[in-house]
């Protein structure tokens, strides 16, 4: 064999050669590597975003300092240190609204009555009187109203808001002094700095959908990103008063649409008051037995459950609400069968006594067969009181139907009874349990999940239909018996809410 033939042979051998490998172990290693890469990717993405935010903040701060250095007394801009604004410091610490101030500034407090001073930034007249309370800044400042107000020109008076924004595609809006029709799609990374003679405890409303808190802050900076279109915007903004005496920052993600703005129909909290109701349900259930099988469980038995109780729903922030209550839950498993026993009994018995011994003779022609039938009922009753604590998200569609995805836990305390009842023609119904009155108390924790639909019934009442599932997280406290149950069914309820 020459070298060339040798190489050919090597090549052929390599084609079919297989190295020893455990494919399953290899697969597991690949999965671990894949997960690691995923986390690394997100870690770097986080670093990138933080870097971007830091750079933006630095850039904005630099611009703000430059702006401050360029201000002159003629510009009319007040440049006051935070300590000169006790209201600012005070309100910045609380960072909340004065409830009495839930009215547009233009209707209550003139923004700047001193005619010798240039007016404050543009403050459009609110179109509606319904306003939503925001616990934060307007995300885009004055620019945020652009897609909604559609105003071609704004008050050219010099404002105290300075906005530096980078838009893709570059829109004409690069400063707060003028605005332009936005493109169909806009992405904005913006940093705003606001300094002005705003009155404390007022709200200014640039657009019905975007009530901007005056936040009583004469100085505030914002940094964030937003997607805007004529139909609405989605944005994520970080806002902080600068200098920030309270060291508070606000992250205000929000979603809004132009339609809401025009109709002034901000999404309302579906529940504004505590709602009370009654709820019941019917279920089927399953048993899970990690421990010993003490449960008389047989094929064919009916596994039924029902519940009844009172609930109340407490509104939380936005569309979130908390539901709790007391529910009586009864699980039953009943297995009925008939047990027949045949016995042959003599009809006539003749006793003959011979020499003191006893003997019995039976007339075999007179035997009869007797069948005794017993009805046997094997039962389990698990009765428990549960206190659920559930978090709900309420999403209302067309002002009619409210979807209520719900997740929560419940504590259960109850009693378990099981036994056998036998009914025979002679004795009637008799308890034949191995342990008469066998009851066992238990305490457990369950998880609950449901997706409910709430339909309005008149002004204050709602009908609740709720497919529901309940899983026991803990079994009985007895170490030997750890049966857990899962329960699936439909809950129906009526809820009353004060209007």
């Amino acid at each position, binding site marked *: 064999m020459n*070298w060339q*033939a040798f190489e050919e042979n090597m*090549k052929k051998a390599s084609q079919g050669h297989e190295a020893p*490998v455990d*494919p399953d172990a*290899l697969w597991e*290693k690949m999965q671990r590597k894949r997960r690691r890469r995923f986390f690394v990717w997100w870690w770097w993405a986080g670093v990138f975003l933080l870097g971007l935010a830091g750079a933006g903040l630095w850039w904005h701060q630099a611009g703000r300092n430059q702006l401050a250095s360029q201000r002159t007394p003629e510009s009319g801009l007040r440049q006051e240190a935070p300590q000169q604004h006790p209201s600012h410091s005070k309100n910045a610490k609380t960072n909340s609204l004065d409830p009495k101030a839930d009215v547009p500034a233009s209707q209550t407090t003139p923004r700047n009555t001193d005619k010798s001073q240039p007016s404050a930034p543009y403050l459009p007249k609110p179109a509606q009187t319904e306003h939503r309370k925001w616990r934060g800044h307007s995300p885009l400042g004055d620019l945020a109203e652009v897609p909604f107000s559609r105003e071609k020109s704004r008050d050219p008076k010099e404002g105290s808001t300075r906005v530096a924004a980078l838009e893709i595609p570059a829109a004409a809006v690069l400063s707060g002094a003028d605005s332009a029709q936005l493109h169909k799609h806009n992405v904005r990374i913006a940093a705003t700095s606001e300094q002005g003679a705003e009155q404390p405890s007022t709200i200014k409303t640039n657009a019905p959908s975007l009530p901007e808190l005056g936040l009583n802050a004469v100085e505030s900076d914002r940094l964030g990103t937003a997607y805007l279109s004529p139909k609405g915007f989605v944005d994520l903004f970080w806002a902080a008063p600068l200098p920030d005496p309270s060291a508070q920052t606000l992250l205000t993600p929000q979603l809004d649409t132009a339609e809401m703005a025009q109709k002034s129909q901000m999404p309302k909290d579906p529940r504004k008051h505590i709602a009370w109701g009654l709820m019941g349900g019917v279920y089927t259930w399953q048993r899970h037995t990690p421990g010993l099988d003490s449960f008389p469980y047989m094929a064919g038995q009916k596994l039924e459950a029902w519940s009844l109780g009172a609930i109340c729903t407490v509104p939380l922030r936005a569309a979130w609400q908390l539901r709790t209550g007391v529910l009586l839950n009864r699980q039953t498993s009943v297995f009925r069968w008939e047990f027949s026993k045949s016995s042959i009994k003599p009809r006539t018995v003749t006793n003959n006594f011979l020499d003191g011994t006893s003997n019995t003779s039976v007339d075999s022609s007179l035997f009869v067969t007797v069948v005794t039938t017993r009805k046997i009922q094997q039962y389990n009753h698990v009765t428990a009181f549960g206190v659920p604590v559930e978090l709900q998200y309420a999403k209302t569609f067309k002002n009619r139907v409210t979807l209520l995805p719900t997740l929560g836990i419940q504590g259960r305390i109850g009693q378990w009874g099981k036994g056998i009842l036998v009914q025979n023609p002679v004795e009637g119904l008799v308890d034949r349990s191995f342990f008469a009155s066998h009851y066992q108390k238990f305490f457990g924790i369950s998880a609950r999940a449901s997706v409910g639909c709430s339909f309005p019934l008149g002004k204050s009442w709602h009908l609740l239909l709720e497919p529901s599932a309940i899983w026991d997280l803990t079994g009985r406290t007895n170490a030997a018996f750890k049966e857990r149950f899962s329960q699936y069914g439909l809950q129906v309820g009526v809820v009353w809410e004060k209007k």
Partner: protein
Amino acid sequence: MLPIQTDVEALLKGCLRREPTAQRQLVRRYAASLLSVARRYTRNTAEAEDVLQDALLLIFEKINTYNPQRGSLEGWMRRVVINAALGNRRRFAFTREQSFDSPPDSQDFAPGVLEQIGFEELLALVNELPDGAREVFNLAVFDDFSHDEIAEKLGIAAGTSRSLLSRARKLLQDKIQRLQRHELASI
């Protein structure tokens, strides 16, 4: 234990849908042969397995770029493994062309010597070659790459590739001859 799926087309479709079951079956079916490829381009089994994992993840990610009309799935995967292995190795700095005398075919072997060398032994000998020569030898002899393709893959000149192949052959022949002498001496 999952059954090994024999239908490559169904396997391919499953992988295109990113089904874990199909991906796992692909691993089970081709891991051994692909590891053999990776092993030739790496110094040890651990490195080869690492390369193979990277290559398989890349295969799952890029399997939509595989064109069945241009070759078999296994051939495509072998190429991906080779690229991953080459990418994993340090980049060679071939700054100057090297030339070697005497074509390898002039080497004389005792009759039957080449026939006696098993594939595993040969792989061990190839593995002892310097990195550059080994990779060129692997690409040219085992995987049928042209010198132009090798040059493109390794970022070297085609002439360098030829030289490295000649060098690899010569070194390999020397090793085989040494092995032959050693065996003769031990008799």
